[in-house]
């Protein structure tokens, strides 16, 4: 399993984890200050094209971090699935951005830079920070009047490569080239509007630009690990779990877990839509195999006490699905032992409408179900108090390694 990101609180305890965040914040504040982001006239100059420091620092930081992140992910050092990617709420984001643009040009800072200004005793930084606190307070008090809109146009974890339909490496390279072009344009604007003498600029910036572009090209060639490659890496560690049957849970355990208020059980039914319509467990989600990869990123966002239970008619398809989800770093994934067939043996026995078939192929439904009533058969919602089933409990909650909500939660 890739080592990074580290589950900090599990490894270092809360104090240790917070110390790491303090250090990262320190680096952040330091980098902002040495770039001149504690000075509002310097920030505002960006918008009068005199000095495009904001653009250079921001885009410089974005492309440097981006190349490093996707190189690390391509080399298998960093698990991109466990990295927090801001979910897209398109219109609230755009409108919020416009309002912040107004705040930026009127107030001269953004929240992070105003903290740095405050730390270096700038009085306008203090007033700006107070304004930010007031704005945040005002938002908290008014958001309930338009909460529906605020939660609208939700596209989830939606990335540029998905949107453009291009490989990640290509997007990284295009963004680096775009940034380099913008840097060139910014210098030209500074020459024209800011009367800057470009011959005084250091020569190392050409070398830096070259290194960045080379890095991006390397990211294209390394590529990003596919689901299959991710599984290959995990195989030796995870395959024994399947063989020792540590992740196949007894129908009784599933039934009890669904009643357990401390667990959130999500049932993923990977059978065909036809079988699903005939019969499925209550609240089971129809999850075709080819949609699993897409779903994985959403499943990663579920709370830490979530248990995912995959089911097919027997176990074959569910086992394949298990490999896909485990390779995508989804935690707490289990398989319903014996699948829906075993479930019906236990809980459908008293329903005369459901009759066992004598012979059926592997992973096919072994019951004749007369009407496509889905979850409206009693067997879809058995009463746990009526069944005393013995089983060895296998569900053990793993520590959540995933991202915990971005800088804005």
């Amino acid at each position, binding site marked *: 399993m890739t080592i*990074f*990101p580290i589950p900090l609180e599990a490894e270092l305890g809360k104090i240790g984890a917070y110390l790491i965040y303090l250090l*990262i914040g*320190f*680096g*952040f*504040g330091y*980098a*902002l*200050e*040495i*770039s001149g982001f*504690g000075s509002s006239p310097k920030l505002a*100059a960006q*918008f*009068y094209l005199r000095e495009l420091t904001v653009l*250079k620092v921001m*885009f410089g*930081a*974005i492309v*440097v971090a981006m190349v*490093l992140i996707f190189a690390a992910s391509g080399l298998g050092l960093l698990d991109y699935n466990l990295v*927090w990617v801001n979910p*897209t*709420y*398109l219109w*609230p*984001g755009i409108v*919020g951005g416009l309002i*912040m643009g*107004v*705040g*930026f*040009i*009127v107030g*001269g800072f953004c*929240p*992070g830079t105003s903290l740095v200004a405050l730390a*270096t*005793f700038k009085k306008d930084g203090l*007033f*700006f920070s107070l*304004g*930010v*606190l007031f*704005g*945040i307070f005002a*938002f*908290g*008090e008014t958001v309930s009047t338009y909460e529906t809109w*605020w939660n609208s146009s939700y*596209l989830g*974890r939606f*990335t540029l*490569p998905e949107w453009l339909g291009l490989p990640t490496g290509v997007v990284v390279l295009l963004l680096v080239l775009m940034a380099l072009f913008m840097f060139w344009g910014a210098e030209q604007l500074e020459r024209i509007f800011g009367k800057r003498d470009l011959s005084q600029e250091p020569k190392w*910036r050409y070398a830096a630009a070259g290194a960045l572009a080379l890095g991006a090209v390397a990211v294209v060639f390394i590529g990003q690990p596919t689901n299959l490659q991710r599984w290959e890496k995990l195989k030796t560690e995870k395959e024994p779990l399947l063989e020792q049957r540590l992740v196949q849970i007894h129908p009784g355990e599933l039934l009890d877990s669904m009643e357990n208020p401390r667990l959130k059980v999500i049932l993923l039914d990977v059978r065909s839509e036809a079988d699903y319509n005939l019969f499925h467990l209550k609240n089971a989600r129809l999850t075709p195999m080819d949609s699993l990869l897409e779903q994985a990123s959403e499943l990663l966002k579920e709370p830490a006490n979530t248990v995912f239970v995959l089911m097919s008619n027997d176990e074959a398809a569910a086992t394949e699905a298990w490999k896909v989800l485990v390779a995508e770093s989804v935690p707490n994934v289990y398989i319903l032992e014996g699948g829906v067939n075993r479930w019906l043996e236990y809980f459908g026995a008293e329903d005369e409408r459901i009759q066992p078939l004598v012979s059926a192929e592997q992973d096919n439904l072994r019951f004749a179900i007369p009407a496509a009533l889905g979850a409206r058969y009693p067997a879809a919602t058995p009463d746990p108090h009526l069944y005393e089933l013995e089983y060895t409990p296998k569900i053990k909650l793993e520590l959540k390694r*995933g*991202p915990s909500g971005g*800088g*804005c939660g």
Partner: protein
Amino acid sequence: MTTVTQKQVRSKSFSLAALFSRRETRPYAHPFLGGALLGIVLFLSFFITGNGLGASGGLNRIVVFIEDLIAPQHVDRVSYLLKMAGGEVNPLDNWIIPMVFGILLGGFVSGWRNGRLKAETGKGPNISVRTRWVTAFVGGAFMGYGARLARGCTSGQALSGGAVLSVGSWAFMLSLFAGAYALAYFVRKLWL
């Protein structure tokens, strides 16, 4: 801050005085150098913790913490506030809080090392200090409101989301710059 200079005068032998004594003001780093450094910090943040950088989220939690002290019942009624401070939940128990203190500390240390710890008001040449304070507060209020609406500020959305290729973050970033450029001409008296 006047207290600093006073301390300096009063106790020359005190080591803190040496700490605060005005150093020679050094020029800012080259923007590409600053950008690269910031990029490395951003990468390390994602690499080690899985989270990006942020600031406004921390300020948000500080506001909610104060609200929770004054009017806990109110906090328990508003769903947005409830998530952060409902019942016994401490809104300050979140990684973003140490990060905010880190930003303050990092900014302070860099300002001190480079002789930029000066109590002053950054402003355009044609407005008074008081006007600048008012515009700073008003601008800050817009920033704070917009940052919550957009679920992140320039650091948490644009910088962090941009680097990990979030579509929403790029749309947000473009709209932020569009808003600022669109208004820049009309408020030029503030800065030029």
